[in-house]
C-alpha cells in the first residue's frame, strides 16, 4: 500500500547530489539529478551496507564511498563489480514544495 512521506523540501538537495533520509528505522538515499528530477533508493549499498549518501553523484550514477560500487540511481541498476545486486528504488513525487517518497 502506498505510504507517502516527506523526505525534504524542494531545493533541499543540490543538483547532482544525494542526501541521507532516515524514517522509521529505515535509511534511504534521496537524489536530485542534473536535470532537476528527484529519485529515491535504499540508503545502504547492496555490497557491504555502506551509506550511499556519503558517496559521489556524477550524472545519473551514485558511487559507494567505500568500495566504489556504482549504481544508476534512477532504476537502481548495479553497474558492475564489486556490486552485483541492484538497489531497491522508491517512487518519488514533488508536491507543495516537498519531495515525497513512497516507502510503502
Amino acid at each position, binding site marked *: 500500500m502506498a505510504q507517502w512521506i516527506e523526505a525534504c523540501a524542494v531545493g533541499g538537495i543540490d543538483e*547532482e547530489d544525494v542526501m541521507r533520509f532516515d524514517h522509521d528505522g529505515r535509511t534511504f538515499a534521496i537524489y536530485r539529478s542534473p536535470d532537476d528530477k528527484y529519485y529515491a533508493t535504499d540508503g545502504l549499498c547492496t555490497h557491504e551496507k*555502506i*551509506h550511499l549518501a*556519503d*558517496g*559521489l553523484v556524477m550524472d545519473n550514477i551514485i*558511487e559507494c*564511498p*567505500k568500495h*566504489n560500487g556504482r549504481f544508476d540511481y534512477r532504476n537502481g541498476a548495479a553497474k558492475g*563489480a*564489486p556490486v552485483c545486486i541492484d538497489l531497491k528504488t522508491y517512487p518519488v513525487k514533488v508536491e507543495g514544495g516537498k519531495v515525497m517518497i513512497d516507502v510503502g
Partner: protein
Amino acid sequence: MVIVGGGMAGARAIIGLRAAGWDGPVTLVSEEALMPYDRPPLSKAAITSDEEPSPVILLDAGMAASLKADMRLGKPVTAIDAAGHTIRVGDETLAYHKLLLATGAKPRQLTCPGAENAITLRDFSDTVALRAKFQPGARIAIIGGGFIGLELASSATKRGCAVNLIEALPRILMRGVPQEIAAVVHARHVAAGVEMLTGTGIAALAADAVTLADGRTIAADVIIAGIGAVPETKLARDAGLELDNGIACDTHLRTSDPDIFAAGDCCSFPHPLFGNKRIRLEAWRNAQDQASVAAENMAGGSKSYTAVPWFWSDQYELSLQIAGMPGDGAEIVRRTLGPEAFLLCHRDGNGRLVGASGIGPGNSIARDVKLVEMMIAKGISPGAETLADPAVSLKSLLKG
C-alpha cells in the same frame, strides 16, 4: 590462460578474461585452500565481530562454475618454464598460452634476536589465530606503526586488550601519510588507551616480552610484527623474469616475457600520470583494476594501466583515504570539510595536483578525495586558494 594466485587480483582476472571475450580454458592455481576472499576485513571487522568470522568470498564455487574457471586450490606452483610455456604444480605440469602472476606480497619478517616470537597477519587463518588471542586484558605488543599495526591496535582495544604500539621512526605512518593526518591518528590511539612508543627500535624479543633499543622491557602475551610487506617474486625470479621492487612490468602489465603478465601487490609498473616513475602498490582497488587490465591484454588487448592510486584505512570511527602520490607533492593545501574532517591537496613544485589525503569520521571525506582523484586523472590543477575555499565546490572545478 593460467592465473597463479587466488587473491583479489586472481579472482578479478577470471572475470576480466571472460569480459574480454576469452572463451578458452581458464585455470587458477592458488597456494591457499580457500576460494578467493577479501583481505581488508582481516585486520578489522573479522577480528572485532562478536561472531566467529568467516571469510568474505569474492568468487564462490557457483560463480567459478558459471565463468568456466578451473580452480586448483591449496596447490603451490613450484616453477615456471617460460620457454616451454608450462608451470609445475606438484607432480603435474600445466601448459599455458598466457600466464598471470598474481602472487601478492608476504609480511616482512623482523631480524632481531628472538624474531620468531612475533606473529604476522596476511591470511584468514592468521586472523582466526589473532582473534583467539585478543582476549580482554591480554597484553598485545605491536611492532610497526603502519596501517596493519594501527588497524590491529584499533581492533585489539575494541576487544578489551592492553596495547603497546612500537614504531622505530619518529612518528607513525611516516611513509606516504602527511604529518597532520598521522597526528590525528596518533591522538585517537592515545585516547583509546594505546601506549604509543615512537622513535623506539627493537633490541630483542622473548616469548613474553619485547626489549626496546633503549633498554626498556615491555611485557606481552602476544607480539605482532607489522613492518611492511615484500612482493612475492620467487617464481618470477627463478624463471628469469626482470625484477625491480616486484615483478617488473610495462604499462600493459606485461613482464619481460611477452606471454607472462603480473597484477596486484607483486607487480611494479611505470605510471604515466607520475612521469613514468616505477611504482608498486599494495592496495585493494589496484589489485582489481590491474587484474582487469592485465586480463584484457592477455586476451589480445593493448590497454595501459593509468588508474590513480587509491587506498583507505579504518581505525575506530575514523577513516582515512589517500589518492595519487602525496609524496610527490611540494606544497599542501588544506581544505576543511567539517569540524573533524579535512582534506589535504598535494601540489608539486609546478602547481600540478599530484595527491589528496584526508581523514574524518565515517566516510565524511570520501567524495572529496574522489573528486580530487578525478582531477588528477584528468590533469586538472586548480589554484591553491580555490582548492582551499570550502565555498567552491570541487565538482564544479572538475567539470570546469
